[in-house]
């Protein structure tokens, strides 16, 4: 891993399209500004990892099984809604 020291107000450029700036440092928390093209995923790491796990689990489900489950309960959820 490349490690750089930066002060408040300083930044880092990655490739042609990515800019990271240290906006503010308060105690143990750092505010970071990121400029990136709109087709880049930018998430807090811990949330990203969790969503990734859930997405992988949800993708391309065993369709007969899940279809029979959801068809059975469809009416119930509509009533609830």
């Amino acid at each position, binding site marked *: 891993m490349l490690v750089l020291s930066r002060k408040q107000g300083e930044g880092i450029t990655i490739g042609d399209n990515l800019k990271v700036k240290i906006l503010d440092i308060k105690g143990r928390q750092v505010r970071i500004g990121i400029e990136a093209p*709109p*087709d*880049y*995923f930018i*998430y*807090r790491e811990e*949330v*990203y990892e*969790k*969503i*990734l796990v*859930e*997405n*992988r*689990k*949800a*993708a*391309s*489900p065993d*369709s007969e*099984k*899940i*279809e029979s*489950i*959801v*068809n*059975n*309960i*469809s*009416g*119930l*959820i*509509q*009533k*609830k*809604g």
Partner: protein
Amino acid sequence: MLINTAKFGKIEIETERILTFSEGIIGFDHAKRYVLFDMAKESPFKWLQAVDDPVLCFIIIDPTLLKPDYSVSVSKEDLESLQADTAEDLGSVAIVSVQDDSKQLTANIRGPLIINFKTRRAKQIALQDQDYSLRHKILQLDDASVECEKAALNG
């Protein structure tokens, strides 16, 4: 256009129906285009089928059916990437999954898919709201509790 899918075979879809996730869905950035299919008549669940990957699909549901007061806050950057003028142009859906050896059906209402139905642009976002779960329980799937849940939902 004609698309190839593992689930529905080869099917013709109107290109206007295609939803474009310019970043893909997290973990599946190879697939940018999807199309929605109804699962069964009047079912709240739908299939989200990838256009460019025949095998890739998700089951989704309107999160407000699970949590009537569900609301998402969308950042200015998200509005821009969805090409939306206001948040009112947007709708959200949650990805459904089966957990723990088929014991539970859940919906990810923490990381919803936000869709601009006008421009057909979409993206998955991560909400900060701790009240919204990655595994919002829809239903317990062992037989006894399905009955309980049915009773609870009907009541």
